[in-house]
């Protein structure tokens, strides 16, 4: 689609904007409560059942005042950050992730699960509604990153960094936006949802091939954690892009729907 310069275009439908901000809240809660749940058993094993021989990540406290993080058998001292951290009640103790990033902000697996499982529904229903709507309206096609878009990714970023005068030719969404939408909506979101389901015994009984596909329950927990890291990586890149690619214009378009086309 070709648009005249400096014209406002209505780019984001209400459902998209509403979903976007609901996801901001939901993902923040899901990460915080997920870390709370992780803290109850701060190990990740690449196996079906727990197996120290196949441990990929272990956060622990070998002694008072010391926190360690072991990744693929290599141990790092992470006192204060991981393993030996603040407990949210004014002192430090053996705790994988610090109380400041977990929900609720003290050790409470039961409530952490309540937050997690509720916002999993919020995020999941929102995702499904958006996906169906975008597919029916045909806008999904304009958002998916195609192989032909890949060579345009760097030129687009170069344009935003003012290293290049003109953006590469593109449709209603530029290649960087397509990459963002495709990675979060069609790769990371399904990975996180499916791995979360796969590690539940009730789902395992109904859809065992799903759990097996991820390597079993503990492996699904590992993938679920990895999906969370990808999600945080997405946030970092996404906020960087928003901040460098016309912050005001971007924020307005995701609040009102109107985007000033360049």
């Amino acid at each position, binding site marked *: 689609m070709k648009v005249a310069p400096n014209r406002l275009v209505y780019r984001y439908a209400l459902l998209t904007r509403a979903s976007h901000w609901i996801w901001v809240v939901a993902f923040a*809660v899901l990460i915080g409560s997920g870390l709370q749940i992780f803290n109850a058993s701060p190990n990740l094993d690449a196996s*079906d*059942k727990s197996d120290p021989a196949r441990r990929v990540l272990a956060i622990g406290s070998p002694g008072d005042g010391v926190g360690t993080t072991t990744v693929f058998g290599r141990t790092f001292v992470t006192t204060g950050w991981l393993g030996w951290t603040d407990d949210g009640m004014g002192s430090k103790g053996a705790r994988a992730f610090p109380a400041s990033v977990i929900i609720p902000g003290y050790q409470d697996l039961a409530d952490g699960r309540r937050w997690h499982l509720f916002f999993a*529904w919020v995020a999941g229903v929102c995702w499904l509604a958006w996906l169906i709507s975008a597919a029916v309206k045909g806008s999904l096609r304009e958002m998916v990153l195609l192989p032909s878009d890949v060579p345009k990714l760097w030129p687009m970023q170069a344009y935003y960094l003012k290293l290049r005068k003109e953006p590469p030719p593109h449709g209603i969404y530029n290649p960087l936006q397509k990459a963002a939408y495709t990675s979060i909506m069609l790769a990371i979101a399904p990975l996180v949802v499916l791995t979360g389901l796969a590690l539940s*015994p*009730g789902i395992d009984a109904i859809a065992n091939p799903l759990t097996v596909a991820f390597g079993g329950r*503990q492996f699904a927990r590992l993938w679920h954690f990895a999906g969370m890291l990808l999600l945080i990586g997405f946030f970092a890149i996404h906020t960087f892009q928003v901040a460098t690619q016309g912050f*005001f214009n971007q924020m307005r378009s995701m609040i009102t729907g109107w985007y000033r086309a360049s």
Partner: protein
Amino acid sequence: MKRRIFLASAASALAGCGPIGSALNNSAQVRNILASAEGLNRLVIGTRGLAREYRDRDVDREFRVNGFATPSDASYQELVARGFAPYRLVVDGAVDRPAAFTLAQLQRMPQQTQITRHDCVEGWSAIGKWSGVRLSDVLDATGIRSDARYVVFRCMDNDGQGNLYYESLDLHQANHPQALLALRLNDAPLDPDHGAPVRLRVPTQLGYKSAKWVARIEVAGSFAKIAGGMGGYWEDQGYEWYAGI
């Protein structure tokens, strides 16, 4: 400038998640809304299908001991000392024929063996080989009255403050073909640390459903008047009654 403000506010928003969550967490209304997910999970997932069964070589020979401490009171010590000869599994409440099964009687009933994974709510899992009597066989033997809704398991272990462990299943879950009153673990009689002489196995739900040291099975129309009224020791502490997820 705007960018700096934005990044600073984003960073502080992330750092504030915990404390804000804690404040919201204490609101009764928020808690009720959050709890609504449990009903949805129960409705959508429910208790369908069968837990995966494993091969002998998958079994954890040293099955992890978890939960409350092994009962240390005199009456349990006596049961252990006498090879559980005085033990009776009492089945009463909304049943047609209340009964008290000896261990020998349970051992003479048809035995089921399952090699299933125990999924703890904390996040770890272990595989054990469990043998024993199907819960549904015991319930068939006593008959269930039409006003029965739940099967409540009363246990011998306590939390150190005198609160006895208990759990509950609805009739559908209790009649699941893998709901087992386990008498053996890994080809040996259950030892005291693993819930001897009888423990429940519910492999389609999280481990806290699989109550150890079961002394009495009480069939009831409701569990509202039992202990904290939420249907189980951990449920009384805020965990979900539906433990399939």
